[in-house]
């Protein structure tokens, strides 16, 4: 499996490249009124308004730093029916991984999955379809691609 690695705060994370649509530099986002704090804004992407979630906010409780490595990973959820953007730091590495192991998985954070066992920092795999709360799900339904 080819995985894209990145960080949210100090936590190393990874995502399967099969779910990644495109990696974009951090661009200016439209503010999403009345959205949860983790949703930093809306990204116009391929004719849709894609919500962007700050993973740093979710994991470390702080906004992502404004560095060159901080990028938006556009992923597809619901079998490619919708997009969701993930704002993360140090988005710069691609790794080939053959082995995964289960880690301690919190029931409240079902969007975090197994660890990549054959990588030095053993990053946890992110499942974007589990990521959004119900409120954001409804937001998607209002904006089909």
């Amino acid at each position, binding site marked *: 499996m080819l995985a894209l690695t990145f960080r949210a705060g100090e936590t190393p994370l990874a995502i399967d*490249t099969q779910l990644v649509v495109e990696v974009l530099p951090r661009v200016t986002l439209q503010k999403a009124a009345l959205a949860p704090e983790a949703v930093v804004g809306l990204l116009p992407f391929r004719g849709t308004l894609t919500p962007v979630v700050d993973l740093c906010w979710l994991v470390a409780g702080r906004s992502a730093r404004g560095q060159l490595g901080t990028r938006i990973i556009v992923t597809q959820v619901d079998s490619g029916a919708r997009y969701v953007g993930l704002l993360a730091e140090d988005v710069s590495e691609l790794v080939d991984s053959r082995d995964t192991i289960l880690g301690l998985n919190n029931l409240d954070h079902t969007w975090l999955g197994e660890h990549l066992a054959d990588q030095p920092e053993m990053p946890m795999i992110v499942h974007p379809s589990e990521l959004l709360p119900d409120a954001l799900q409804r937001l998607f339904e209002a904006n089909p691609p």
Partner: protein
Amino acid sequence: MSRGESQLASRLSMFVLVFLTLYAVFAFVAWRTLDQVRVKGPYYTEIMLGNELIADVLPPPQYIIESYLLTLQLIDERDPSEISRLIEEGNELRVTYEARQEYWKRALDDSTMKDLMTVTASRAAMEFFRIRDDVYIPAIRADDRVAARAALDQMRQRYEAHRYAIDEVWELAETRNADYEKRADALIGEQIRTLVILAIGVVLVVVVMAWFARRSAQSLSARVLLVSDVAGRVAQGDLTTEVPPSDAGDEAGRLLGAIGGMTQSLRGLVTRVKQASVELMSTATEFAATSRQQEATVQGFGASTNEIAAAVKQIAATSQELLATMEGLNAVSGQTADLAEAGQSGLSNLDSTMDRLAQAANAMSARLAAIREEAAEITGVVTTISKVADQTNLLSINAAIEAEKAGEQGLGFLVLAREIRRLADQTAVATLDIEQMVKQMQTAVSAGVMEIDRFAEEVRSGVGTVDRVGGQFGQIISQVKTLSERFDTVNHGMRSQSQGARQIGEAMGQLLDGARQTSVSLREFNAATEGLRDAVTVLKTEIAKFKLGND
């Protein structure tokens, strides 16, 4: 206090009592007099009794009854001498009647009674007298008894008319008298009442007066006693007495106030005198101490003067030695001037070297500034390279993702994308190194600039210092030159000094004489101070007899 009060008040009361008694006696006498002389009073009764007696015993002149009786007597008389005596008597009666008639005409007021008395009764009487004189007397003298009886008849008719009128007059007079008596009685009664009221009023006024007199006497004597008490205590030297303030503006109040003021000012005076005597005492003591010190000083002064004279001789000797030393010094100062000139020329060379150093430092500073600018440009280029590398990394990631999605067909492209990403990473690392190096260089340049600046500043201050030192050398040279002139002056001064020392020795001898005289005067002064102290002691004892209350 009670003794004084009783004195004044009792004297006043006695006066009032005497006055009241005298007044009562006077009132009683007045009443008695009035009572005695009143109408129907004892005197009046006596006088009236006398009048009545006279009226009863004497024949009334205005009543012609006696003339009528004489005419009746004449008719039967035969003796011619008796006849002429009776006629004579009758003539006298007529004269008396007319005289009294004139009196009553003047005395009586115009009234019915006067009419009756002076007109009615008088007319009848005058008729009576005329008939008697014209008819009756001639008939009697002619011894014509018939004619005489006829005339007598006529005369009797006139007499009757007269008597009638006189009776009426009597009645009227009685009535009038009774009326006057009543009026007099009433008047006197009224007067007595007035007298009684007046007496009561006077007694009341006197009582009020007595009360007022007693009251003012009491207050007056109380205050006078207070004043005398205060004055007595002041006389004994007790000045603590406070005189209560008097609100009464009368003489006693003013006296009280004056005594109070006097006591207060006396107290102030004594206090001041007391303080002054204490100060005087201490001053006298100081005087004594000071004069004793002075005496000692003067004695010491004599000894000192002798020492000074000896010292002055030594000074004269020393100044001679000093003269020799000064000449040696003069030679040394000439050498100093030469050395200072050599130093000044050396400094001029140093000055020019310093100027060149300052210029070099400025040039170095400018070059370092240029280097700093270059470094800033390098930083800009490095930033651009960093951005490009980042962009390349992003592109390679996306390319790799796309290649992965393409599966087997994208495999070659995936390798290529990976290679590109590696290059981009290497570029990023290189730019990071460059950035680090440039930063170090910038720090070094900054430190160099600071160092150079500091060096330039030091050079500049060095130049200033060299200038100052040069100036000081100049001053030294000029001063050393003037020194030799001064040395001459000093030599001259030394000579006058040894001369002056001799003069001082003479003056010291005179001073010694003066000191002896001063010592004698001081002893006299001491005696005078002792006298002053004795006098002050006496003054203090006298003053201590006054009590002031605040000590």
